């Protein structure tokens, strides 16, 4: 019964999505708005049906059979409803219609978008939503049923997904990914109108900032998950699917900043519209890469050629038509630049240039294997060495400008005044960088010092902004300051972690000790444990630091019953300055175990920086809500 209801709800949602497109053509008052809310209601209903199918472990539903099991704990059963292609696509559609509904309520309340434009934005969103719901219904229906003749049990969720990460990471990531549809719809609607309302950039900004914060947080959560689950303490792998989430993030960061120029200076209009289209196109590209099987990745879903063809065709229509609009209408938005070479505008333009170059290098690296294969040359995979070599040098100047740009005035600025303003900040950043290896005893490396300098420079320059503010309200800039400091902390964490991590692989008998990075690790005992759907061999370690303080930590080797697959569950000791990471390997016949021990300094700073980005996003939303809605005027 529930699966049929869910299926029916999807059909109704599809119907309402089509009504949403028809909105501007059928002049029935309130019809389009009703369609938006009904669509959201029915998709939410379908999602609930799917979740209940999982809770009841209804194995007649194929998607449930493939991803659930009677022994799977409840919380993972709920998570499993988006743990595979079909369910995650339903979540995707639900989030898209959720954003649309939220955007509509918000805009109707603030009255900051003229009705004509609002109707067009909702229309474009309907167009995207229809395509995705149709995709869901026709190629990836999560409610497809099959009645087995004899009782069977489900295939269970892949062990690697049985982690709290599954509960938060995909919804958070999708909130980001999908949310950019609004900015895209905004850009296309503006192009269709052929003229810009004066405050459109202001009205559009929260719809870039919110998804951007969610995406930042989603990416960081994914990295945290990989760090804990994959058992070797890495936090970024340049996997094609990680790249797929990083690409829209980079483009959206550019969009975020160029919108500011649009709002404050009425410049960069065409470029901003283009960036909104690029950002969403990259979200699309990511979805296509993950779900079509054109690339090999640890994340890729089981693939089906129809899905790839559909998604590609749909992407061609949506992004292609947006680009056609852009081609035809862009001449209306052209304005000669009104700023001097050395000004805040130039720095924000540089920001865009750098970020788009970074996007281009990652796209090239990710698609290069397909290019070679398409030309029948050879099969290769592009990995970390390429990305580290090209991505890092591009981002370094951007980080330096990040500290500088907020101090540069709009319009024009002289180099001398800027130098006078910033020289002490520069001096102290360099001083601390120089002192760092001496005080902490860490080895000196040029690149590491560069990373440390950039991090400290951004923090100091941003704090300087705070101290130089005279009787202005702090809230509007605080979001920017927190986000920028978040990036600085991220950079510091990544640099220090990359440079000073230490690891050792050892063979240990119970009772034996090993020293690493000033800690003594003792394997206390090995015992067996039983989980709800796994059995595990757990090793209890005692760790003593050089001041004699003791901690204990358990590292497990789990065997999941339904998959007969071993998973290493690392034991991690956490504090602000370092993680100690112990992964249990294989056993030897003499009772010894191979153990990998990692000392990972500053790894928490990476997650911490990521959450600051989320916080910055929320603060900026609060600022936006506090401002009185400015009435719109056409120019």
């Amino acid at each position: 019964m529930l699966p049929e209801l869910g299926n029916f709800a999807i059909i109704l949602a599809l119907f309402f999505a089509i009504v949403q497109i028809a909105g501007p053509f059928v002049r029935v008052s309130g019809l389009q708005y009703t369609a938006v809310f009904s669509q959201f209601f029915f998709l939410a209903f379908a999602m609930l049906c799917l979740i209940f199918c999982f809770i009841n472990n209804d194995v007649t539903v194929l998607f449930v059979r493939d991803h659930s099991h009677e022994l799977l704990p409840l919380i993972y059963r709920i998570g499993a409803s988006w743990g595979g292609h079909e369910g995650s696509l339903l979540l995707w559609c639900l989030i898209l219609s959720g954003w649309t509904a939220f955007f509509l309520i918000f805009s109707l309340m603030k009255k900051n978008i003229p009705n004509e434009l609002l109707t067009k934005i909702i229309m474009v969103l309907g167009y995207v939503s229809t395509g995705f719901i149709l995709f869901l219904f026709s190629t990836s229906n999560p409610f497809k049923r099959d009645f087995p003749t004899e009782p069977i049990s489900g295939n269970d969720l892949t062990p690697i997904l049985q982690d709290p990460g599954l509960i938060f990471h995909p919804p958070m990531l999708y909130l980001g990914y999908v949310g950019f549809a609004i900015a895209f719809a905004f850009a296309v609607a503006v192009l269709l109108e052929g003229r810009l309302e004066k405050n459109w950039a202001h009205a559009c900004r929260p719809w870039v900032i919110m998804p951007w914060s969610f995406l930042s947080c989603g990416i960081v959560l994914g990295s945290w998950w990989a760090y804990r689950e994959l058992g070797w303490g890495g936090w970024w792998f340049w996997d094609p699917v990680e790249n797929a989430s990083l690409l829209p993030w980079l483009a959206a960061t550019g969009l975020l900043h160029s919108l500011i120029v649009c709002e404050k200076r009425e410049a960069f209009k065409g470029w901003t519209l283009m960036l909104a289209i690029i950002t969403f196109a990259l979200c699309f590209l990511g979805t296509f890469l993950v779900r079509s099987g054109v690339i090999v990745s640890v994340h890729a879903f089981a693939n089906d050629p129809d899905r790839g063809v559909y998604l590609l065709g749909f992407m061609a229509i949506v992004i292609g038509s947006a680009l056609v609009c852009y081609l035809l209408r862009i001449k209306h938005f052209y304005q000669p630049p009104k700023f001097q070479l050395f000004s805040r505008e130039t720095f924000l333009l540089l920001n865009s240039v750098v970020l788009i170059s970074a996007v281009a290098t990652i796209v090239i690296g990710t698609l290069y294997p397909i290019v070679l294969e398409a030309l029948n040359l050879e099969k290769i995979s592009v990995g970390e060495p390429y990305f580290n070599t090209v991505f890092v040098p591009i981002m370094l100047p951007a980080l330096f400008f990040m500290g500088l740009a907020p101090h540069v005035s709009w319009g024009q600025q002289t180099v001398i005044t800027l130098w006078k303003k910033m020289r002490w900040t520069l001096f102290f950043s360099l001083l601390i960088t120089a002192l760092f290896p001496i005080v902490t005893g860490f080895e000196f490396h040029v690149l590491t010092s560069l990373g440390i300098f950039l991090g400290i420079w951004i923090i100091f320059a941003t704090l300087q902004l705070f101290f130089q503010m005279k009787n202005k309200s702090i809230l509007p800039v605080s979001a920017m300051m927190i986000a920028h400091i978040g990036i600085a902390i991220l950079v510091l964490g990544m640099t220090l972690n990359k440079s000073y991590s230490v690891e050792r692989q050892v063979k240990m008998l119970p009772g034996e000790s090993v020293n690493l990075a000033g800690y003594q690790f003792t394997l206390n005992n090995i015992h067996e444990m039983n989980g709800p759907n796994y059995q595990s061999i757990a090793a209890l370690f005692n760790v003593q630091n050089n001041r004699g303080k003791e901690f204990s930590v358990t590292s497990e080797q789990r065997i999941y019953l339904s998959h007969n697959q071993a998973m290493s569950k690392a034991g991690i000791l956490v504090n602000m300055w370092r993680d100690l990471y112990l992964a249990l390997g294989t056993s030897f016949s003499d009772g010894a175990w191979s153990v990998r021990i990692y000392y990972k300094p500053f790894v928490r700073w990476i997650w911490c920086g990521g959450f600051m980005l989320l916080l910055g996003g929320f603060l900026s939303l609060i600022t936006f809500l506090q401002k009185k809605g400015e009435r719109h005027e056409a120019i």
Partner: protein
Amino acid sequence: MRLFKLIRVGLPMMIFLGVMLLLWRGLTLHPAQIPSPLINKPAPQYRLPNLLNKKMMTERDLIGHVTLLNVWASWCEACAEEQSTLVAISQNKNFQIIGLDYKDNLADAKKWLQQYGNPYEVIAVDQTGNSAIDWGVYGTPETFVIDKKGIIRYKYIGPISMEVWEDTLRPVIEKLS
């Protein structure tokens, strides 16, 4: 000047079309199937016991027959899937099917053969997995086609279905025999 403007405005469209074409082409490719460097090379040397009678077997057993060498294990789910196809095609006497039992428990392997059927002429047991490394095996099931001179001519990755047999493997074997 007009041309410059056209290029500037049209550039995003051109890049987009290029990427779309590339992805379209990409859909027809199979990136997960990595070609074996052993194609057209002699089969690697091995010396492995037979699962059923403990007799030693070597690569010289391959000479004189067209061989389908199938790498499998009792713990491999996809192997159980292809077994019915293998049993069906083993009726064909133009070629021999040799099994390579990969990192397996011998008792489990024998039980598994009773359950799913035994299409193999002989089964070599590679308990350490060292021989599989020589063959460049990175997962089960994998199937090699070896000609009468003991030279590897084809490698198929993944379970063999009846369609795979008809469309892919059968033409290769017929050409060799």
